[in-house]
């Protein structure tokens, strides 16, 4: 693993008495694509602004490449930001926008011109040098904002929901584009989004946040397959989250039916949250299932059907490629391996979860 490039230590930040971030600890490795993911207002932008130097923490330290930069002004930090609302300079042409940072660094004219060409090519907007900012669409402006940041060859690029304003198709194109850029340029990305799919597609590491607390840090696979609590499970993809009781190791009671599972170490008769992904619910004939119920809704989603089954008093969300008409009787089965058991939240930062979940 490569070395730590940025290290946030015990960061606390509050606005007018409201604590936004409370004792946040997070490090980012060199060349990593790290994504901050969480619902609106959870403190993602605030975290990014602290790293960028636009806010200073009430408490804690920010270490960059071994040096304490907590009190350094933004223009003295070796990183660049792509802002949530583009923030292009409206009185300059596109070329002037891109050249801004390079002119400040007193680069030669030839160097700047080469860089502008190269950056515009990179974001697929060659020939746009002379255009004005208002003549661009939202997606094009976004790409210029990215070009303006990367020509400075920062060690770290901070991106605040850079694809938020784009439609689905363009967003997907830009996702690939960004990953390509990252690999080509070898810079570290800190990326903010509240779109879980985007986070799963692009990141090396995902940091799931809620109400100023980090809920889980891990690879996309970890976060999706082994969510550490009900909030993460709910936020990353759709889930059936059901109250259960862990009877003993490898046996959990859900909706008064005992399901075999693979988890151990929860003690006996412990209340837990049980998470089952909709694609892991198998629909079988009524007498073959552990539970049986009736289909109450059926929606075609393209690749699969989204079905709601009322069984045992709970509305199970099911993704399946087989059609089951509304009103038909079905049985429910779940592979023990696909049942996730989680402790109910206890500590104060986990309680934040409950409020939202």
């Amino acid at each position, binding site marked *: 693993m490569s070395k730590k490039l940025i290290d946030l230590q015990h960061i606390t930040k509050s606005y007018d008495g409201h604590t936004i971030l409370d004792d946040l600890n997070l490090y980012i490795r060199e060349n990593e694509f790290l994504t901050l993911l969480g619902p609106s207002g959870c403190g993602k932008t605030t975290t990014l602004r602290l790293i960028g*130097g636009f806010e200073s923490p009430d408490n804690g330290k920010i270490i960059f490449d071994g040096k304490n930069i907590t009190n350094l002004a933004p223009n003295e930090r070796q990183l660049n*930001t792509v802002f949530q609302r583009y*923030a292009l*300079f*409206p009185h300059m042409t596109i070329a002037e926008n891109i050249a801004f*940072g390079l002119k*400040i660094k007193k680069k030669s004219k030839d160097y700047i011109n080469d860089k502008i060409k190269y950056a515009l090519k990179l974001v697929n907007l060659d020939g746009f040098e002379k255009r004005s900012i208002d003549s661009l669409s939202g997606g094009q402006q976004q790409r210029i904002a990215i070009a303006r940041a990367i020509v*400075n060859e920062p060690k770290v690029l901070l991106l605040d929901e850079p694809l938020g304003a784009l439609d689905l198709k363009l967003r997907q194109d830009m996702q690939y584009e960004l990953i390509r850029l990252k690999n080509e340029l070898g810079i570290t990305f800190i990326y903010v989004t509240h779109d879980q799919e985007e986070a799963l597609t692009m990141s090396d590491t995902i940091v799931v946040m809620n109400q100023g607390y980090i809920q889980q840090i891990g690879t996309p696979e970890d976060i999706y397959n082994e969510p550490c609590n009900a909030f993460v499970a709910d936020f990353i993809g759709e889930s059936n989250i059901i109250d259960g009781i862990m009877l003993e190791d490898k046996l959990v009671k859900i909706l008064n039916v005992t399901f075999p599972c693979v988890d151990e170490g929860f003690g006996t008769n412990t209340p837990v949250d049980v998470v089952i992904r909709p694609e892991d619910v198998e629909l079988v004939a009524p007498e073959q299932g552990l539970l049986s119920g009736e289909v109450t809704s059926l929606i075609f989603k393209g690749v699969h059907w989204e079905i709601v089954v009322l069984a045992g008093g709970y509305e199970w969300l099911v993704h399946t490629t087989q059609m089951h008409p509304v009103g038909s009787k079905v049985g429910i089965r779940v592979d023990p391996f696909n049942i996730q058991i989680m402790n109910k939240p206890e500590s104060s930062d986990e309680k934040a979860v409950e409020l939202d979940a």
Partner: protein
Amino acid sequence: MRNLKRQLFAGPYMIWIVGFILLPVVMILYYAFTTSSGSFTVSNVLTITHPIFFRALLFSLKLALVCTLICLVLAYPLAMILNNMKNGSQGFIVFIFILPMWMNFMLRILAWKMLLSNNGIINTILGFFGLPDLHIINTPAAVVLCMVYDFLPFMVLPIYNALARINRDVIEAAKDLGAGNITIFFKIIVPLSMSGVISGIIMVFVPALTSFAVSDLLGGGKVLLIGNIIEQAFTQDYNWNLGAGLSFVLMIFVLVSMTLVNSRDTEGGANVW
């Protein structure tokens, strides 16, 4: 149908434009290019080449320029301070600035006359502290001082509005790209507030160039501006043709200066006239 309705709504404005803008301009043009008996002439307009009139015009231009410059130098920092203040107090200070504008224009000039006159309040206070008297009443300095006082809000407000419209994001982006405060000021703040500066310049320069009341009351007859000469032509000599001719020349100067100032506008789309 909808079109007809729209035209009906525009009706009153059309009457206003024709009655109070077009008609007076046409009348000025008519009088400017005719003799008192009604035959065509250019002599009214050419009177401006007469040394006294020409000097008055040059002097008016100079005073208006000085006044505009002083207003700009005072207003820009003021607008920046206003813009950097907390939201609550901002409104209050702007209000304080607008407050004198609610007083009658003539009253304000008369107040300055009282303040500045040789036995006036300022000299009484200066004398009380044993300081030398201030003799600026009846000089161009008094005229400029009063015009600056009168017109300063017209410079501050458009600049303040332009500054307030600059997005905080844009300034942060500049910082992010390595710009220090000086670069941010000259490369971002000044160009983005240019539309306000231009509005301000026009709103101060034009009334300063054409004013006659201030120089009348504070110049003591010694400060002769082109506005005073036009006023005298109309109200004392009853020579409407001469007055209109000189007004026409002044109008040309106003139009030319506005065009010049507007062509310096870098932002585009911010034309104020």
